[in-house]
């Protein structure tokens, strides 16, 4: 073993990460090579300096409380909505517009709830094995995969030429029904596109919201509800929405 072969391995040797055979080869080499022996010694010194403790960043005291508060508010929005709304509704019972108010209160901003469901599904899809039931960049494979599984036929198109290749599809449950999910990619960002038949025949323009750092887009077009979820920036995601609408 010469110095050149050794060079890359010295660092792993110092870390005790080489197998026995190579470890012994290095030991034999540094017995006769002062340059490599010095490198080993220097790396040991460097390691000791790095581990001495002064480099470790200690968190500020308030961070634990801050993180706990954020986690509490996240679980609260999911769990405590209904009791609060029930209290609000009961306080309004004395009012004149009881009927209207109760109906309003029992359906709190349905779009927000769907957006949260879309985000939950998007996050779930990032876990291993959850992204796609059918994996293909070929829309002629993805489209027939959906048939027979849904009561509608989702429009499946590939936008590889525009920089948004189709990578697969799956079924998911959003808004109390089974929906089609088309999975697209933009560089390293994943885009989940959710589509299902809309109760409204009117087209709506694209609205964008941000939930927990993810961008969520929604629109209605040609009798279909569309939702996009991604960590891609809003501008590019809206550009992609326009591709889907055309």
């Amino acid at each position, binding site marked *: 073993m010469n110095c050149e072969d050794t060079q890359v391995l010295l660092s792993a040797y110092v870390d005790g*990460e080489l197998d026995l055979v190579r470890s012994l080869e290095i030991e034999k080499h540094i017995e006769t090579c002062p340059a490599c022996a010095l490198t080993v010694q220097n790396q040991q010194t460097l390691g000791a300096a790095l581990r001495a403790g002064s480099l470790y960043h200690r968190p500020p005291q308030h*961070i634990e409380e801050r*993180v706990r508060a954020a986690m509490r508010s996240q679980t609260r929005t999911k769990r405590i909505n209904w009791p609060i709304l029930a209290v609000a509704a009961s306080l309004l019972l004395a009012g004149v517009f009881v009927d209207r108010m109760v109906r309003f209160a029992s359906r709190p901003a349905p779009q927000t709830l769907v957006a949260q469901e879309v985000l939950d599904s998007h996050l779930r899809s990032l876990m291993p094995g959850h992204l796609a039931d059918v994996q293909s960049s070929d829309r002629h494979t993805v489209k027939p995969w959906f048939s027979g599984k849904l009561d509608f036929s989702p429009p499946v198109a590939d936008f590889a030429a525009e920089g948004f290749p189709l990578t697969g599809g799956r079924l998911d449950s959003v808004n109390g029904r089974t929906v089609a999910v088309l999975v697209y990619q933009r560089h390293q960002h994943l885009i989940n596109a959710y589509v299902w038949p809309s109760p409204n025949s009117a087209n709506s323009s694209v609205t964008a919201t941000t939930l927990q750092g993810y961008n969520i887009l929604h629109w209605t077009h040609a009798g279909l509800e569309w939702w996009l979820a991604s*960590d891609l920036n809003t501008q590019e995601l809206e550009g992609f929405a326009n591709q889907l609408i055309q």
Partner: protein
Amino acid sequence: MYGSARREQFFETHVVPHMGAAYNLARWLTRNDHDAEDVVQEAYLRAFRFWESFRGADARAWLLAIVRNTCFTWLQQNRKPSLELVEDMPDLKSAQANPEALLLANVDAEMLRRAVEELPLEFREAIVLRELEGFSYKEISSITSAPIGTVMSRLARARTRLQKALQGGAA
């Protein structure tokens, strides 16, 4: 309720105790106190959602993988121009350390801190996980989704650069 009680217990016993490691990694990757706090908060929210993805091995490694992914997303969204990605071609020959003995007594802690801060992101990450957290190459490989050979080469190159920086400064 059973599921959410289990999740909270899991968090208290396995995840909250590693907030120091989470902050240290986030602080080294973002190089900023305020950003590190934001990243830690976001990473904990993600960990809270994804807690079922924990496979019962090492909660600290699992959490730090989430922290580093949150950091990378965060850096991409907030600091496009300065996101340094380094190709994994070995450059050991061109960047060999000076053949002088490095003496621990002569290592200036502040100079060492600056040298680590100036390492390319992926080298810095490897050094923090190895030297400050003590992970094995295999664990670093799984946290950073990089092959073990890549981990080995990043550490070797990072150390060569650090030695050069320390000796260059002393000369």
